[in-house]
């Protein structure tokens, strides 16, 4: 079942009806909002709205829920850039350069480029979805446990480039992240680990709590300590990025679309993973990698493009196989099945009007989001001018509510606060926090895939090197490790973090 223009046009006809346009707009707006709020992600957003969908016709409902998902990818960057607190796990890398830009008075251009990059990547991905969906579906199942492990291993090797010159500190930070992720039950066997005999720790540490704690709470603590009255005394000179900036990021946008889209076809490869990969790729491609972490505009464009591409790519396995790649996708799957639409190879054949209407709505949704986000840049950027005695408590409030809403457990709030303190000391002592976040995001998949692979190979680790795809990832990982060590040896730099100790 290939692509047909006729179907796409019919899809546009359906998506452009007043009712469907309205629900797409509602979805885009809510998506942006849950994206902006730290801790509250698209899953909660969709879940809260799910009851509404029972009164809507199926196409409108799915159009809206899809819009919430990709809309959240637009919003996540806002707080990451303006106050150094990512609104979503998928915007963690954005904070690294985005916040630096904001400190230099370039919050406006950073916000704008993130909206533009989201739009470019979102639209390119929808085009790819339109043209290749049925074909690309096969790509997802090529990945078995060994390929997943190799991919995650490569992901973990990014720690080297995320740590800058403080490699040892970066590795310690990563080890802490992996250690935190080990708490609780073994994902494969259910064995309890590091629980010290308590039942509370059995549930494990949720990585959202880790991220929110490390960024939001520690940021507030540092600001309190420095008696800062506004979160930064920056002045926003101009809101729009220069045309040169956009041109500079064009290649970045296209590359990060590619990375985000292809990795996004794999179940489990959430935007929180692919954004790191895209960020690292840009750093390597750049002629001036030293600018990264110090306010490089490509460092904002890359993750923001990748997370949009990934969220769109997730529709390929969802429509073609009924395989949800992320919890939000599972909610959508539920929505489809609720209306008697059985996802799978037959969906495109049996319900073409529906599928193509949803795909067409995604073109429209991306335009809506761009319009919704660009003019609001000025408004978002003004958050920085809110006095800290108002903003600080608001951040803490959002962090607590957001963490609690993940699984309604006070335990998660404590975990978040503890990681806030850990994050505070890490920043004080010059430990990069990004490796810790990366490790806690990847740990569970890494571990599950490792266990499964070794069962399949009857214990032989060579399984990772004898299968072509995993061999390529492993080679890339080792290259990056080797290069990191080489750079460190050559520079013989003292152990200092690249970040300013502010």
């Amino acid at each position: 079942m290939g692509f047909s223009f006729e179907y796409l046009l019919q899809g546009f006809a359906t998506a452009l009806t007043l009712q469907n346009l309205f629900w797409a707009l509602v979805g885009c707006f809510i998506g942006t909002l849950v994206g902006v709020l730290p801790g509250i992600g698209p899953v909660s957003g969709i879940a809260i709205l799910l009851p509404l969908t029972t009164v809507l016709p199926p196409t409108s409902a799915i159009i809206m829920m899809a819009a919430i998902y990709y809309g959240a990818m637009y919003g996540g960057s806002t707080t990451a850039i303006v106050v150094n607190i990512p609104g979503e796990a998928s915007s963690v890398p954005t904070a690294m350069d985005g916040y630096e830009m904001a400190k230099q008075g370039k919050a406006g251009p950073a916000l704008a480029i993130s909206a533009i990059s989201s739009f470019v990547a979102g639209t390119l991905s929808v085009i790819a979805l339109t043209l290749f969906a049925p074909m690309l579906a096969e790509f997802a199942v090529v990945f078995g446990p060994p390929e997943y492990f190799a991919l995650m291993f490569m992901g973990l090797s990014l720690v080297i480039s995320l740590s800058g010159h403080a490699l040892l500190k970066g590795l310690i930070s990563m080890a802490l992240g992996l250690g935190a992720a080990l708490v609780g039950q073994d994902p494969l066997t259910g064995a309890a680990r590091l629980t010290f005999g308590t039942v509370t720790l059995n549930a494990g540490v949720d990585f959202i709590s880790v991220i929110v704690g490390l960024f939001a709470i520690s940021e507030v603590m540092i600001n309190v300590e420095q008696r800062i009255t506004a979160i930064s005394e920056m002045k926003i000179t101009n809101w729009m990025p220069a045309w040169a900036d956009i041109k500079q990021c064009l290649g970045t946008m296209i590359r990060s679309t590619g990375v985000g889209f292809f990795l996004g076809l794999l179940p489990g490869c959430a935007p929180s993973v692919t954004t790191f990969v895209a960020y690292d790729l840009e750093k390597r491609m750049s002629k001036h990698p030293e600018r990264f972490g110090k306010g490089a505009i490509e460092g904002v464009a890359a993750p923001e493009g990748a997370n949009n591409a990934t969220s769109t790519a997730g529709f390929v396995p969802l429509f073609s196989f009924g395989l949800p790649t992320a919890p939000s996708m599972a909610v959508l799957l539920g929505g489809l099945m609720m209306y008697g639409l059985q996802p799978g190879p037959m969906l495109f054949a049996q319900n073409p009007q529906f599928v193509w209407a949803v795909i067409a709505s995604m073109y429209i949704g991306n335009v809506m989001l761009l319009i919704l986000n660009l003019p609001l840049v000025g408004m978002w950027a003004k958050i920085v001018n809110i006095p800290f005695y108002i903003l600080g408590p608001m951040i803490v409030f959002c962090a607590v509510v957001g963490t609690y809403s993940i699984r309604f457990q006070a335990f998660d709030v404590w975990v978040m606060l503890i990681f806030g303190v850990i994050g505070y000391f890490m920043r004080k002592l010059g430990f990069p926090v990004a490796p810790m976040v990366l490790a806690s995001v990847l740990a569970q998949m890494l571990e599950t895939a490792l266990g499964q692979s070794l069962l399949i190979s009857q214990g032989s680790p060579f399984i990772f090197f004898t299968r072509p795809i995993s061999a390529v990832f492993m080679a890339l990982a080792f290259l990056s490790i080797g290069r990191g060590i080489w750079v460190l040896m050559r520079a013989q730099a003292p152990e200092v973090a690249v970040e300013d100790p502010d």
Partner: protein
Amino acid sequence: MKRLAIGFLVLVVGLAMVGVGAAAAAGFPTKRITYNICFNPGGESDITARFQEAPLKKILGQDIAINYKIGGGGALCWSELVQTKPDGYTIAGHNLPHIALQPLEMGNAGYKTLDLKNIYFFESTPNLLLVRIDSPYKTLKDFVEYAKKTPGAVTVGGSGTSSANDLGTTMLNKAAGIQLTYVPFGGTGSAVPALLGSHVTALMSYSTMAIQYAGKFRALAVASETRMEVLPDVPTFKELGYDIVEGAYRGVAAPPGTPDDVIKILASAFETVHKDPEVRKKMDQNGFKTESMGPEASLELVKKKMVEYEAIMKQLGRIK
């Protein structure tokens, strides 16, 4: 005077809170109910919950929020459930034999079988052995013969550890005198892609997947007493000479200490949902066998199965 006013205010607020607490059971439910799914999205528990969601909402008059807690073959989800506030606002899907096997086998599974307060068992699915449609093994006989030649090298994916699929694989090993390597996944939803991509030789899965992936997979045998109506061409293990009848029951449970009247309200809601001919039809078409066991009947089943499984596990040598 001011102090008195504040004192009064505190008293009123305090009383109001007590009042709310007491009224909780009477007007149940007054807010959103969280329904945790312990396996990957796209698996049986998830599919069923999606069928139940809208009708439950209609009956209970509150939203149903479906969440995923995946890991340890369900143990992660259940160990979390037993720690949750027992007010009926958090429930989780639960499975037999998993809840009987894990506390036996894992040592500390984080929960005890009887900690889980049964609300209702609504379905069961027999185990089923699947290979890809292009696999060289056309029959169970072909498969067993190949496995005999290559002990340990034939991999069988399935949902979870100490689960129905895990146990079914061990049973086949024992009955046929072969050595299959069982590879656990987070749920049926993540085991299926492993077979789609040929990363495992076969899947020990459930009847539902033979229907959903009819064009992609071939079912070699089903572990039910007699052939299933929806899969008339799939022989039973029994017909083929292996005495294996195994599968999973699925239901919902609440944390220990949940008030009985709350359990009753939830149980009757689930019963109404599954008596609905529309839901029934969807379940049948997807290969689920409808069960209808309320709290007491469920508890009886669990207790009966605990004894049975302990004996089976000892016989298989999986526990001492």
